[in-house]
């Protein structure tokens, strides 16, 4: 019973905030409601016995990724709306129809899948989803992919540094002022780098 209450509450929160994020006008509001989505999803993970992954979801998604989003939204604050120019008049209708179609397709796929209606798997085995169990699986069965992700993260760091670097010619005219601006820019770029290091 308790699980039902938690499930319904969390899914309503996740769905409502997800819709509000998708339809919101103000990007900062979108980010805030998306935070609610992420937290309710973490709660759902806990309900499914994924303690470790649920906490990781908060640390990485809510604590790092979304903060980075907020940072960028605020840096670009002045012009972060959608322009008045409409290229495709029917876009909202088409988008709605396509999304509905996707939902129907996914729904039929789920309904026809063999997994539906199978009896409840019962309580999870002892220690299911703990840091230890997930870690053991990660380092035993998924060692190679794990090592590959470190390369991916390194590439992400390099990409962020290359993209975040300001062009060199900006510096010479106002050496000192530009110097501090560069320090600030560097600090922000560093803020981005941090994101990749956390998941490790």
């Amino acid at each position, binding site marked *: 019973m308790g699980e039902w209450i938690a499930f319904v509450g969390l899914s309503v929160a996740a769905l409502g905030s*997800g819709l509000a994020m*998708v339809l919101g006008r103000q*990007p900062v509001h979108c980010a805030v409601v998306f935070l609610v989505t992420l937290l309710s999803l973490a709660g759902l*993970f806990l*309900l*499914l016995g994924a303690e470790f992954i649920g906490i990781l979801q908060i640390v990485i998604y809510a604590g790092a990724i979304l903060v980075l989003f907020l940072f960028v939204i605020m840096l670009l604050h002045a012009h972060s709306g959608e*322009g008045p120019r409409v290229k495709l008049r029917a876009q909202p209708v088409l988008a709605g129809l396509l999304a*509905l179609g996707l939902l129907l397709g996914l729904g039929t796929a789920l309904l026809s899948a063999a997994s539906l209606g199978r009896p409840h798997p019962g309580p999870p085995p002892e220690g299911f989803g703990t840091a230890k169990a997930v870690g053991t699986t990660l380092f035993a069965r998924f060692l190679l992919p794990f090592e590959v992700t470190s390369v991916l993260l390194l590439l992400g760091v390099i990409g*962020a540094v290359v993209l975040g670097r300001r062009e060199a010619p900006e510096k010479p005219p106002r050496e000192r002022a530009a110097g501090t601006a560069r320090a600030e820019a560097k600090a922000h770029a560093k803020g981005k780098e941090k994101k990749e290091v956390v*998941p490790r």
Partner: protein
Amino acid sequence: MSAVPPDAYLVLSAVLFSVGALGVLLRRNALILFMSIELMLNAVNLAFVAFARVWGDLGGQVIVFFVLVVAAAEVVVGLAIIVNIFRTRETVDIDDVDLLRG
């Protein structure tokens, strides 16, 4: 009605995925569009965790870990690109960015 069947989580995941897809199709603000993509990733994560529960196999949860890592790398590069576009074109509306040059 004692325990929630894992199928309920799968249905929720499908709906969330469609909501995210709606955002990707509907929005023109690159930042919100990007967040919608994150929502789709999250919906898939939920499905993976639900499958891990159904099969009693932690592989599903480990995949979520990988998705988180990939999402982190993707967001960093993606946001850096958005910032760069903003620097040159003063816009984050993707309809304004339709040329293959700066």
